[in-house]
């Protein structure tokens, strides 16, 4: 019997209830890592690269846009996908996220957990 390695998804979210619910659902398909701050996310990325980062914008300390800028500035992260998952969804915020290189920008409240799993799957499949 062969064991397939699960791809890793890093959830960057300071709300522990949300990250817990999301992580529980994603863990059915992926290996899940958590970071409650941008700084913690970048430290994790330096040691163990995930396939995809689910990134909130409003974080304590460094905000999600700044985290995205750091991720994209490091060539070692060229194959790391970033999906912004935030409850901020103004046009200029979405445009900024895309401009900084996010694969997708989605509004948290509009998605079910199944939608998030589908979205992660579709972004990862595109790169396969």
């Amino acid at each position, binding site marked *: 019997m062969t064991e397939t390695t699960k791809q890793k998804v890093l959830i960057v979210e300071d709300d522990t209830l949300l990250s817990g619910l999301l992580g529980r659902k994603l863990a059915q398909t992926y290996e899940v890592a958590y970071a409650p701050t941008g700084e913690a996310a970048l430290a994790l990325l330096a040691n163990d690269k995930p396939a995809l980062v689910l990134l909130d914008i409003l974080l304590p300390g460094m905000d999600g846009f700044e985290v995205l800028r750091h991720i994209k500035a490091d060539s070692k992260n060229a194959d790391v996908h970033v999906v912004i998952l935030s409850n901020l969804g103004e*046009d200029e915020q979405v445009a900024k996220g895309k401009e900084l290189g996010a694969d997708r920008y989605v509004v948290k409240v509009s998605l079910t957990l199944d939608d998030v799993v589908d979205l992660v799957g579709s972004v990862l499949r595109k790169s396969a």
Partner: protein
Amino acid sequence: VLIIGVFLLGSVTKEVRIQKELAKLTLDKAKSEFVTIAAHQLRTPLSAVRWSFGLLRTGSSLDNNDRDIASKGAQAADNMMYIVNDLLNVARMEHGTIQFDMADGDLRDVVRIATDVLNEAAKKKSISLRVSVPDTPVMTRFDQDKMVMVAENLVDNAIKYTPQGGSIAVELSTGEATARLRVTDTGIGISRGDSARLFERFFRSDRAKRMLPDGSGLGLYIVKTMVDGHKGTVRLEPAPQSGTIATVEIPLVHGPSSVSGTAVSGSSPQGILRT
């Protein structure tokens, strides 16, 4: 002296009127900003409620009765999400912060995205959702997210207000200068008397309130503002037998009046949403 007196009185009256207008504008802006902040603050706990009910109802730890309660809770949270999103959209429109990111594209993509999203909701009510699009691209200039919002709102309305087992037809076609999206349902229909008010903010017809007590009454207002931003038109009319026909028309890209990128404020829509 009389002439100077009349002149001064006129100036003072004008000044008072300007002050009142400014005060109203400031109040409108503050109101709109309050709604935006309140709606954003509601989104995070609402996400937690939706995701919690979502996990509960699909989990294996509940019996059928408890799962049914979780489903109803999820439905209520979904309704609240629609209302919060509608409020945010209206606040954006009235704040003039909605930008239309126009690009040439195929409207068939809009119909496909909107109907894919809502297919499951139609199935749950055993409603037949028939989609018909031309074989060739329907090229128009539009903001994809906003036109998806328009199509989703119209199809979602049709599903909400069509009883179990009904049918909905979504048809995309082209005329000489416009692309036409038509959504025809076998639902509760609209009365002639209500048709003029359907695009007003917060308006809900008695029939709509009887069938679905909850609702923001903002969906069609948003639809109209979004369609206006595309220099298009939208109308709702009773279907010949029963139900409603919603028709949106926007200029074809090579038509005589194709539009370019624009921003719109929804404070004074010309007679026609999106989320």
